[in-house]
Structure formats: structure tokens, C-alpha cells
């Protein structure tokens, strides 16, 4: 994002740096995802050079890291806006950005060029921890914790000095939880059940609790900025959402404890609490829809222009309402009950849910934040969707939903053949992989992955050029 900057605060400029790296990592995620998708169809593709395990590892790590970058960026973006003052210690904040980015680069290079190590604790420290999503070596873990502590200190000191808002209170307490939980994933144990138990503390309590609350807070901010909703009402809803998200999400953790060696009582806790998890998502959906309609009604009455001041951001916000409900809600719910989950656990169903939920719940709202940053950077009063904005949202959404559907079909076939009929053995796995339904689902997944990537390029083009098109800027 080059050109004349109109940011009122240095914190917002820093936010745009975070957003830029987030977009680059988003691109890396798609690229490595394509490699892994090709390997499902042509297993010899890059075999021995960049094996599936490595491609897939970078695919999911890039995903997590770009979202964390975009979330930190989002916090830096709304922090001065909410508190009314510049970020305290902006110099340190910028330094931390460079340290973090350097660390991420080193980790990725090690992943690509060194890949695996000997069965030695040194590998865990310097090459990879080898635990899905948490592969970053331990030195990087510690580095991340230090950087995040600096980030927290910055935001806290700023929030204390400036204006206190409900949104800021939610974000700050959420960030502490988010950072603290990361510590649960930083030790080594020989006991794989124990390992998985704590691993889920990081993964689940991030993705299904603290990240969702973050989304709630960002959506609240966006509703105030983009739609013009009343702050008091929005903040009241935010608190209700926090209660519902944490109330269901924290003990909903139980749905990961059905089969990893943990006691049977988790069946009931996991099933019933996670069955409630979609409820706040319905609430968020209704809330966004209603506020949008209501504010439009006010404008209509006053005879004002009813179009939003940032159409692309609004479109992504609305797709967040749908996507969160569909990806996290529907796709999560239909395999969450233990009676069903014993067959679906560890199949492509999970992959389908993962793709749809990460996109619907998180990617959408973070992209909306990118558009808000573009608007802020160039001081644009009204930002209208261009052809590229529309293509981006259409192709990315269509592509991800397509991948989700393809993987769901693959998962269904796997459940029937590898699990229910043949009993989950080595042979059962490959028999299921060889079926036409599986093979074609994998073809469609790749095609839809390409569609998503094309959409991504439209998104990049749009973010870089939307401000320069006088037709779309008022």
C-alpha cells in the first residue's frame, strides 16, 4: 500500500504494515495449499523436495500467522481511534514488528530448507516442534511470547491513558487470554494423551473462543464505523456475545477430548456445550443484518444517501455473518456429537470444516479490516466497490465454499468406506482414497483452490488500486 498516507496516527500506519505482511502470508498459504492439493492428485509432484508434510505444514502455519498478524494490525488500527490518543511507545511497537517479521521469515526458511531433524531435543528447539499448527521451533515460541508481551504492554498503557470503551475492554482481556494460552503449547512430554490435551488448549481455545470474541469486537467496531450503529447498543450486544461465546466455547473444548485417552465424561460435556456454540453465531448474524437495515432506514427517512461509506468492507462484513454461521456453525455441528464423531474424527470432514470455518469466521472480517485501513490511509469519505472488489469477494467465497463441499463429499465417502465398513486400518484408508468419489472430490478441491487464488489476486489488485480510481472514491 504505497502513496500518500493520511493516517492521523502512527499506530494506524503500523497497522498497515501488519496488514501488508498478513496479505503476503495469505498468498503463501494459498500457494502451499495448491502444492498440497496437487500432491493429493499427483503424489509424485515435488516428492522428496517439498513433501506433502512440509507443504501442508507451511500451509496451515501461514494461515495462523497471517491471521494473528491481521488481528494485531486490527488492534493497532482501532486502538488510537477508540482511545483517542497515539499508541504509547510506538517506537518499540515498530521495532517489535520487525523482530517478529524477521523471526517468521527465519522459521519459514528453516521449514523449507531443513524440514526435519534427528530425534533430539535440539530439533525441537531449532527446527520444528512437529505438533500440527504449533510446529514453530521453541526459540521462535519464546520470541513470539516476548513480542506479544510487548504488544500487550503497548495496548494496555495506551488504553489506560486514553478513553475507555467497552470494545477496548473486551479486546484487551481477550488478548491476555490469547497470549496466555499460547504457553500451554510449549512443553514436551512423552505422553501423547497429555500432549494432545494441552495442544487443544491452544488450538481450540484460540480458534473457538478467543478468536471468536476478537471477531465479535472487530464486528462491533466495524458496525459503528461502517454502518453507523449506536455505540451503546453495539457494546451491549458485544457483552452478550462474549457471555455466549465463552459460555459455550470454553467447555466446548470437550468435543476434542472424546478419543484421545481422556475420561468418558467429556462425551457429554463436549457434545452439549459445543451444540450451543452456533447460538451466538446466529445472534451475530441477526445483529449485523438488523443494524444494517435499521441504519439504512434512518438514512432513508432523513433523505440521505443510503449507501455505506465503505461498500467492500460492508460486503465482507456481511459475508462474515453468513460464513461464520455456515462454516463454524453448520459444518461444526454436524460432526460434533460423539455418536457421529467416532466415525468422522480424523477424516476429510475436519478439513472441510477447517477450510470453511477459518475463511467464514476469520478471513472475511480481517479482509474487511484491510479495506477499512485503505479507507483510513487515503482519507476517503466513501469507498465504493470496484469490479475487482466484487470479483475478489465472489471468487474467494465461491472457491472456498467449493473446496468445502468437495472435502465434505470426500469425508463422507471416507466415513462410509474407511470407517464404518472397513474399520480404519491401513488398507481401509487406501481403499477409500482410491474410490472415484474421493479422487474426483480431490480434483474439484484443486480447481476450487485455483479459483480462490485468482480471487486473491483480484483482492491484492483491489487493495492496491481502489484508492486511485476517482470513480470509486468520494
Amino acid at each position, binding site marked *: 500500500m504505497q502513496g500518500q498516507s493520511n493516517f492521523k496516527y502512527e499506530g494506524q500506519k503500523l497497522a498497515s504494515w501488519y496488514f501488508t505482511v498478513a496479505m503476503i502470508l495469505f498468498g503463501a498459504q494459498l500457494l502451499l495449499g495448491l502444492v498440497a492439493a496437487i500432491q493429493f492428485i499427483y503424489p509424485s509432484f515435488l516428492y522428496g523436495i517439498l513433501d506433502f508434510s512440509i507443504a501442508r505444514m507451511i500451509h496451515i502455519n501461514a494461515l495462523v500467522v497471517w491471521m494473528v498478524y491481521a488481528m494485531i494490525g486490527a488492534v493497532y488500527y482501532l486502538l488510537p481511534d477508540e482511545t483517542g490518543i497515539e499508541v504509547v511507545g510506538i517506537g518499540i511497537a515498530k521495532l517489535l514488528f520487525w523482530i517478529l517479521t524477521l523471526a517468521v521469515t527465519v522459521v519459514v526458511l528453516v521449514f523449507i530448507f531443513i524440514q526435519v531433524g534427528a530425534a533430539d531435543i535440539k530439533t525441537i528447539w531449532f527446527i520444528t516442534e512437529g505438533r500440527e499448527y504449533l510446529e514453530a521451533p521453541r526459540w521462535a515460541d519464546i520470541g513470539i511470547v516476548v513480542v506479544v508481551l510487548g504488544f500487550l504492554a503497548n495496548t494496555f498503557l495506551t488504553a489506560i491513558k486514553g478513553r475507555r470503551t467497552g470494545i477496548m475492554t473486551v479486546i484487551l482481556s481477550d488478548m491476555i487470554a490469547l497470549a496466555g494460552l499460547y504457553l500451554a503449547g510449549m512443553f514436551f512430554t512423552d505422553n501423547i494423551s497429555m500432549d494432545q490435551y494441552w495442544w487443544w488448549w491452544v488450538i481450540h481455545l484460540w480458534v473457538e473462543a478467543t478468536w471468536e470474541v476478537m471477531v465479535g469486537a472487530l464486528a462491533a467496531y466495524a458496525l459503528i464505523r461502517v454502518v453507523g450503529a449506536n455505540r451503546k447498543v453495539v457494546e*451491549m450486544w458485544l457483552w452478550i456475545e462474549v457471555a455466549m461465546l465463552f459460555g459455550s466455547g470454553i467447555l466446548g473444548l470437550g468435543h476434542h477430548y472424546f478419543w484421545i485417552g481422556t475420561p468418558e465424561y467429556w462425551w457429554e460435556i463436549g457434545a452439549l456445550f459445543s451444540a450451543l456454540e452456533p447460538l451466538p453465531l446466529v445472534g451475530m448474524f441477526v445483529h449485523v443484518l438488523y443494524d444494517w437495515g435499521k441504519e439504512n432506514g434512518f438514512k432513508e427517512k432523513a433523505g440521505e444517501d443510503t449507501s455505506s461509506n465503505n461498500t467492500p468492507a460492508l460486503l465482507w462484513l456481511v459475508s462474515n455473518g453468513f460464513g461464520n454461521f455456515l462454516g463454524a456453525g453448520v459444518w461444526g455441528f454436524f460432526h460434533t456429537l460423539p455418536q457421529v464423531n467416532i466415525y468422522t474424527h480424523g477424516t476429510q470432514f475436519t478439513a472441510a470444516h477447517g477450510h470453511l470455518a477459518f475463511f467464514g469466521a476469520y478471513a472475511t472480517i480481517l479482509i474487511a479490516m484491510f479495506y477499512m485501513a485503505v479507507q483510513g490511509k487515503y482519507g476517503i469519505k466513501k469507498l465504493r466497490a470496484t469490479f475487482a472488489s466484487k470479483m475478489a469477494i465472489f471468487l474467494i467465497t465461491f472457491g472456498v465454499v467449493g473446496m468445502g463441499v468437495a472435502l465434505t463429499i470426500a469425508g463422507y465417502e471416507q466415513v462410509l468406506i474407511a470407517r464404518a465398513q472397513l474399520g480404519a486400518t491401513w488398507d481401509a484408508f487406501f481403499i477409500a482414497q482410491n474410490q472415484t468419489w474421493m479422487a474426483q472430490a480431490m480434483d474439484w478441491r484443486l480447481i476450487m483452490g485455483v479459483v480462490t487464488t485468482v480471487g486473491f489476486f483480484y483482492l491484492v489488485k483491489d487493495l492496491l488500486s481502489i484508492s486511485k480510481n476517482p470513480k470509486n472514491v468520494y
Partner: protein
Amino acid sequence: MAEKKVSVWSDNRFWQRSATWVTGFASLLLIWLTFDTMGQITMGNQKDINNHITKRVPSATVINYKVEYKMNQRRGHEVPVIGGDDGKGDSLFKVKENFFGRDNYSQKEADALLHLGKLASQAKNCMDCHTLLGNGAYYAPDLTKAWLDPAWQKGGTMQAMTGKSTKEEAMAEFLQNPGKYPTHARMMPNLGITQKEAVGLVAFLKHMATIDTNGFPRGFGKIKEGVVYARSK
């Protein structure tokens, strides 16, 4: 004094306090549950085996024993059976079985093997192709009960392919030279696994098969003859 009409439901403070309460209390419950679960999934030791105490995660020394996966009437699902069963599906902890030619690994030796195997499983990124306890990637087979997989038993395709006469040797051989034994177009890459690491990994796999996973995967290995090989490429 007449009751004043107030709306608590639209009060920000009420919802803020409720959210704080719900979050805090749910977290406390989770911490309590975690302590309870920790107690139940702590790894056992040889003393438990000697005293016939069933642990959810048994001692590393289970590598000295015969391991099966059987229906347990009381539990209502399949459970790992260590050292033979007592007729009701519970472990007897009696029947031994050689593991790389020995059945007398001491606690210390077995712990060291398991430690090496677990480290290797992370250093080689197993979870980014396979699933362990159902978690991981979906590119290669689930390894939760891999030790009990028919393909690795006597007469199984995988054991026959490696030309070894026991499943632990067959598994170790495969792990060291996966490229030599293609079972599918999707081959396991050569990860530089050494002889020692391979033994550790096999111990890790055998131990993992003895973890009580509440009946997951259901009906493991209940493949009807003939169906299995008919469609493999």
C-alpha cells in the same frame, strides 16, 4: 417506596458482569476438569501392571506384553487388552510378547525408547501426513492402532513386503526405507530415520495402541477378507 421502573436487560453493566461471571466460572470449571483429567491420563508404571491396575495411558513397559483391542461388555465399546484378557474383555497383564527379541525391557529402558520415539514423531513431522489419535493430517493412514493393523501381522501385506518375520522388525524396516516399499502411489518420503529412531518409533506406536481411546477407532481391523485387496491399485 414505589418500585421504580428500570430496565436491567438493556443495561450494559448487567451484561458486562454476566459475561465476566460466565467466562470466569467456565474457566474455573475447565481448570477443575483439567486437574481431574490429568490425574486420569498420567502415564502408569510397571508397578501398576504388576498390581493389575488398568491405566488410561499405561506404562511404557507394555512393549513387553501382548496387546489386543477387544470389545468390553462393561464399557460398551472396544478397549486395549494388555497381556491377554480375563474373558470379560479386561486386561490380565500376563501374556508376554517379544519386542525386537526381548520381553524384559526394564522401566528405564522402556521409558527411554518411548521418549526417543515420541521425539522422533515430532522431529519427523509425522502429524503433517498421518493422524495420531485422530488428530493431524489426512494424507496417510491413522496410526492410533497401527501396531494392531492386520497389514503388519504375520501374513499381512506390509510385513510380507519387507521380508521380515516380526511386525516390529517389519515396521522398523519400512520406516527406514519407505521409498523401497511403495504401497500406494502416495509414498512415504525418506526422512532419514535411523535404526535407533525406528525402534523408538515402533515402541511409541505399540504404546499408543494401548491407550484407552474410549473405543476409537470403532471396529478397528474388522475387514472382511477379499474386500480388502479387490480395489487397491
